[in-house]
């Protein structure tokens, strides 16, 4: 039944695409570069197949390391050198202002497609009136929890970070007493990289500690609420979280989680689909909820993530590349991505889609979460965002690993951020 439906869908898609993009003129070979987590490489092949069939072009995925910081470094090198090898770049939501000069303006090409997306996301990819990249999926992290373990010990999913700490400790101790030696309470991303900025921004924001640099450009990070948030996170390391969490990125955290060795995990929606895969030890034993808050009643904070596709100014096959970008950002591809990889669509209508709701029930629930998501301060800090983020994650990483207290490190961070800011961002 589903296969039939899939085939029919694909046939319509092919026909529609022939109508939209015209018959293939000359087969081009495109190169698409993207970070690869989970099954991204295999999924990409299936994802672009209809487009390849419709246009006669082929796409090769060039996989990058999972660390977004490393990806960005490599992108910047290629783009600075004007490399013609890569035609399309998959870009993080925060990169648009820093890489804008190297990408093609997609305003004209996407004039029909762009209004179907959430306006805030399109806006985040628009720099000085130029549409730098088209959104292909958005991201907002969730708290994953083990339904079986919580039920076994009669616990509720935690509402506040304090509750999470308590529940995690309780279940971890109880499970270990029963001989489950490798169990941990809570895993997250503590390596010193962009992901830690996301995690820490959530702790700080949900404790009422602001968002590092406010939209008007003021540096707000040095405040008692932020200090309290970081001190709490520090108390997790070595108690409910393994010491190694300080070197974890998304995939390491998922590794511990998916082998059944964690009660809670903070991660992006992609881990939902993988966690329910056949090789997963936690298949059908977990659920997700919004991230905890500082005090009861506060709004939960989830860092806005998300990925976009941009066409390189240096590509020699721009026409084909733009056509692929439009396809990847269009409803067909987003729907497939939502079903196959539990990625959140950026097209509003897809949240009402019954197929998606059936395959990935979390997605319709997720609309609210990401509508209230906190952006990282990439807009106010412009080209200096990376440095600001690196200073922030270093201060947090130092605090977590016991090099200075949160208060000392945040005080120093404020001074450093002021230095970077200079006379203005």
């Amino acid at each position, binding site marked *: 039944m589903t296969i039939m439906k899939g085939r029919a869908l694909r046939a319509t898609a092919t026909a529609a695409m022939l109508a939209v993009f015209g018959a293939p003129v000359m087969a081009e070979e495109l190169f698409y570069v993207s970070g690869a987590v989970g099954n991204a490489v295999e999924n990409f092949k299936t994802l672009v197949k209809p487009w390849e069939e419709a246009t006669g072009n082929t796409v090769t995925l060039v996989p990058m390391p999972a660390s977004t910081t490393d990806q*960005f470094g490599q992108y910047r090198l290629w783009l600075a050198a004007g490399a013609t090898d890569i035609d399309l770049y998959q870009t993080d939501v925060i990169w648009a202002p820093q890489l804008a000069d190297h990408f093609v303006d997609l305003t004209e090409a996407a004039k029909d497609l762009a209004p179907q997306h959430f306006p805030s996301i399109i806006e985040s990819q628009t720099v000085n009136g130029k549409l730098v990249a088209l959104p292909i999926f958005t991201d907002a992290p969730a708290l994953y929890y083990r339904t079986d373990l919580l039920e076994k010990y009669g616990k509720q999913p935690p509402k506040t970070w304090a509750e999470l700490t308590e529940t995690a400790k309780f279940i971890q101790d109880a499970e270990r007493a029963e001989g489950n030696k490798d169990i941990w309470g809570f895993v997250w991303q503590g*390596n010193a*990289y962009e992901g830690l900025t996301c995690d820490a921004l959530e702790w700080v924001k949900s404790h009422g500690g602001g968002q590092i640099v406010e939209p008007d450009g003021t540096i707000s990070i040095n405040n008692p609420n932020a200090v309290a948030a970081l001190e709490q996170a520090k108390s997790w390391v070595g108690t409910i979280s*393994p010491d*190694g969490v300080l070197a974890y990125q998304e995939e390491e955290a998922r590794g511990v989680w998916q082998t059944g060795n964690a009660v809670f995990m903070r991660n992006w929606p992609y881990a939902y689909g993988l966690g329910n895969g056949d090789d997963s030890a936690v298949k059908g034993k977990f659920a997700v909820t919004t991230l905890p808050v500082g005090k009861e009643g506060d709004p939960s904070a989830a860092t806005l993530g998300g990925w976009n596709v941009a066409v390189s100014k240096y590509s020699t096959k721009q026409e084909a590349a733009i056509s692929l970008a439009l396809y990847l950002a269009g409803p067909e591809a987003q729907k497939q991505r939502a079903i196959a990889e539990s990625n959140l669509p950026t097209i509003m209508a897809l949240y009402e889609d019954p197929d998606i709701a059936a395959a990935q029930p979390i997605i319709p629930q997720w609309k609210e979460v990401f509508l209230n998501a906190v952006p990282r301060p990439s807009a106010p800090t412009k080209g200096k965002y990376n440095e600001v983020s*690196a200073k922030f994650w*270093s201060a947090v990483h130092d605090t977590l690993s*016991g*090099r200075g207290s949160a208060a000392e490190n945040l005080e120093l961070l404020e001074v450093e951020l002021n230095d970077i800011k200079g006379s203005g961002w």
Partner: protein
Amino acid sequence: MASNDGGLSLSQQRQRAAFWFLAPMLAALFFVAAWPLLRTIWFSLTNTLLSDLYGGEFIGFDNYLSIRVLESGRVIYRGTLVDPAWWNAVWNTVRFAVVSVFFETVLGLIVALVLNAEFKGRGLVRAAILIPWAIPTIVSAKMWAWMLNDQFGIINDILLNLGLISQKIAWTASTDTAMYAVLMVDIWKTTPFMALLILAGLQMVPRDIYEAAKLDGINPVKVFFRITLPLIRPALAVAIIFRMLDALRIFDLVYVLTPNSAATKTMSVISRENMIDFDKFAYGAAQSTLLFAIIAVFVSLYIWLGKVDLSGEGQR
């Protein structure tokens, strides 16, 4: 006949021939070594950005040190030379280089002495011991990263089963052990290289000296310190310089193995970070230039203090 050589004397002809034989090598050296070096030094004196490599303007030594007096009379210092992050990286690198080269030399010497002895299957052992050196650093770094992983790593598993530790240790994540992890992997990787260089030196030592010592009944420890060590000193010195140069520019191992934390960041890592991640290309170039200067100083000091003969002729 005489018109062919343009009336040059024999020695002039030989010099000219030598020049043409050397020319390709000199040109290659200029393009791969001198030109990038000069260009980096030039970049360090400009305000070049990575996003605009050809638009930099000359700003003098501001990337190294700039002193500004504010209207209030406060003096502000900026630049690499007053950047604590840079000096932390220098300290990390120097500490790493000294410790790793020390252990590699001692262990390499021991391995070389063993391999120098006559035993069955010596050729096989010599080849086998080179394996760590033959594996590309990135591959071995990643391999060790998995072995040292706190949750699924085999090293924790072994130590735990042997009862040597009571709890899994986060080797590369914890700032206390991250540097040890880097050191251990580097020593594992580079000891064979040292052993090989020292072994080459050992094989140059004439056998009859040992026979004479044996006849005189001198104990082996004394033989080692009075005969072996002085005779292999030139080879040892060259090996140490090679390793020192290598260790001072360590990048890959630190970059792959440990989180990007101040506890392990080295000069190369911080310079790359500024150049690529932060778009401060010129600032990173200034750090690269300083790295070059520091390595140059180290090597000259070592050569001068150790009176190392790099010409290869040596006083017999």
